[in-house]
């Protein structure tokens, strides 16, 4: 059997130009985690249901496990690591999760944080029901979601009060 053909994949990840040569079948989630070693993006099901691998592709949340890295070469990607403020302090959604006990084991959390980050850009003042809808494509086995919804509302509140968020 022949060795597999490799493709150069170049991405701007969290503001940094990064690249690697990988097979066409490399999933974006694996590319980020294993080729670029950004392991904040997690893989919970690899069939697009759980949402743990959600990242921002050109600002929009998408499933990292349902995209081939080669297919989005040249794009801008933001991962949970990239939502930390430039001074190293927690981004506003991250901080809201901490303050609202929005995580337990933390495995699903990165996918929620990226999803909510994008959601609040579109809807900065969600109702509780809108907050619930916004996270309804992500699975969490620990929290029962109650404190994640609280985190969404808390993040909105923090943004309103002018708390620093660089992203």
């Amino acid at each position, binding site marked *: 059997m022949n060795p597999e053909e490799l493709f150069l994949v170049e991405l701007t990840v969290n503001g940094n130009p990064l690249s690697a040569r990988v097979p066409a079948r490399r999933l974006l989630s694996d590319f980020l985690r294993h080729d670029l070693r950004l392991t904040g993006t*997690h893989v919970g099901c690899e069939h697009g249901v759980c949402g743990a691998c959600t990242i921002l592709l050109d600002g929009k949340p998408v499933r990292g496990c349902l995209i081939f890295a080669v297919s989005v070469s040249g794009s801008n990607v933001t991962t949970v690591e990239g939502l930390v403020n430039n001074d190293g302090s927690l981004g506003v959604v991250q901080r809201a999760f901490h303050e609202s*006990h929005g995580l337990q084991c933390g495995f699903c959390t990165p996918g929620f944080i990226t999803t909510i980050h994008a959601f609040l850009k579109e809807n900065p003042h969600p109702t509780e029901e809108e907050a619930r809808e916004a996270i*309804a494509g992500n699975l969490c086995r*620990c929290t*029962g979601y109650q404190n994640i919804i609280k985190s969404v509302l808390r993040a909105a509140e923090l943004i309103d009060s002018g708390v620093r968020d660089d992203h």
Partner: protein
Amino acid sequence: MTTKSFGEPILRKEDPRLVSGQGRYLDDLGHEALAAAFLRSPHASARILDIDVTDALDVPGLIGIYTYEDLEGRVAEPLPLLIPHPALLNGRTGYPLANEFVRHVGEAIVMVIAEDRYIAEDVVELIKVSYDVLQPVVGIQNAKAAHNAVHPSVPNNVSAHSVKEVGDARAMIKAAPHKLSLDLFIERSACSPLEGKGVYAIWEEDSQELRLWSSTQTSTGVRAAVAAKLDLPLQKVECIAPDVGGGFGVKIMHPWPEEVLIPWAARKLNRPVKWSEDRREHFISSAHERAQEHHIEVGFDEEGRILGLDVTFFHDNGAYTPYGIIIPLITSTQLLGPYKPASYRVEFTSLFTNTVLVIPYRGAGRPQGVFAMERTVDAIAKYLRLDRTVVRERNFIQPDEMPYDLGLIFQDGRPLEYDSGNFPASMAMLKEMVGWDNFETMRSEYAAQGRKIGIGVACYVEGTGVGPYEGGFVQVETSGRINVATGLTSQGQGHQTVFAQIVADELGVPIEDVFVTTGDTRRFPYAVGTFASRAAVMSGNAIALAARQVRDKALRLAGEALECDPHDLEIVDGIVRVKGDHTKSIALKTVAVLSNPLRYAFDESAKAATQFAVGDTSKPPVPEDQEPGLEGKDYYSPMASTFANGMHAVIIEILPDTAEVKILRYVVVHDCGRVINPMIVEGQIHGGVAQGVAGALFERMAYDESGQLQNASFMDFLMPYATEIPTVEAGHLETPSPLNPLGIKGAGEAGVIPGSAVFASAIEDAEGFEIRRMPISPSELWELRRTMKENA
């Protein structure tokens, strides 16, 4: 004064790392490691005739292919039976790789090691296995019928049989004024943590040492099991549980075949090897729980008091019993909940089936027991036309009867004795919170709009903090940093925070200075594991005891330094000072310096402890009965488990045409003794309730008759999203446990336990007909309605 942190909703210390993508879960480690993938059985029961790897051999990047024939030494022996029990007459365990026979879909047959997981899966696809497919046994009915055998050497597919009696229940039922019988069934579900299992192993050829990481609930257990299997001295094996993405029971089992095979391969190849379980593997080769079938006979008086309760149940234990029969043992004891039937008989039979093995899933046999008991109580209430809560109250063990001995042996081999609890107070609080007494008004208001609602109630008692023991280590560094270690592992329970709270209070130091390590055998080698809602009780108390030792030593050393009686000293904010005279003080970190007399000065603080700087020359530098260092280690090993309890109520609406169940309110009253961190306890309840809702209305394992799991994905295994889970209204009672120094009880499993019971109660209340099987889907409920209508 140091702010007291016990009892406060302290924000979690682990969060900043985890929310910023800096957590390190199993698959985040070992980027250079080789990857493993497994060829797993597509058949539920088969004999392996041949394994042909010819086509797979020229795949670039392939490192090795291993079958049972390749296994060596004790790796080739059956996996251990972890928890033997006299009633487990025919325990059976599998092999790391199938030895001639496969007994469930998903059982590992071939291990492939390759440069990466993609290639390993390519190789797996090219291996051809031929089978003689046998007739499988699927489901309790087929296991009982025993037309086929899961293990030819096990008659009637029975692994275990047990009968326990307190009083003569059968005679009491016969003599009772009223009798009822019920047949009940609960289907399989599974823990389904968002992170599957995983193992990563490095073999150090030079030192002949093995270091392994496992996404486990017991690193000490894995270490011991792997050392035994690989015939290594325990000292040559270290096991670390990194950040673990949820457990809920499935990761307490050990060693999983992969936990043996990956280290074995790493040593054999002298290369780091990693296996990360994928979601499909998790469904078909990890573990499930819950499937039980109950038959109940109950006799009671006019008031609804239970005179005799006779429960016969069958438990589906899957293909193997490596974790023993803990689940049916728990079911058979915890079924009784807060009630005191005058007599009780329970008989269970544990059965093999050709399905994934069964080990505890959060709740561990209690949801089934509570379902059985609560359905029975509801049936009595209905029969006598009494309020369901009244019948419950009449059967409650009263607070003045505590401690209450139920006359049975619990899962830890010790007498089942409730230490404390106030069930009437819990019920009163629940009724008040949910508006039980006004519900009929609410019902008629809804009815007037053509809407159908129902209310359900369910109670449980949960034995938590089972032994045998846990340990704690507390150490003050000369920098003032406090290191804490305990051997059990963490999967999201916030141990780094709650244990730090305990130490901060016991020692009088700021919580920011306390750093907790769990699940690392290098830091604390003696431990049992995190299961059975035991971590806070066991390690919490052990750490408190260790901290008290450190405190005593610090006060003694400080007393010497300050030339005063240690009893006159206190520690506040990391400073040891004389009570009432704060000018006389010494920093705890300075005491740490003094505790360790030094010859060499490597920094400023060390200089203060060198031989020409300190010491009473009339005594040895380290007194005879002392050790250097400001640190302490202690263990907590309780006489018995401590029993938490709770009561749930739910109000539901059922849509008339589609039989969809909408949750209007979900109310929890919970008593887990003294609470270390209410925010974390409440989080545990939320998560537990979500799994209870899931188990009652959404999740099941859908096996077909050939033993194929038809819903082995998150597409079809319906783990609820936020849109399916209600907001939980929680009320707390704190009845301290008299059994342990901190007065705490476990809280981890509480939320999930009454799920099926409370929904069955509410659906029955809304629909008016009996609910005897859970979970229940809208389709099943609608079909049930139709059957009831036809029969009426």
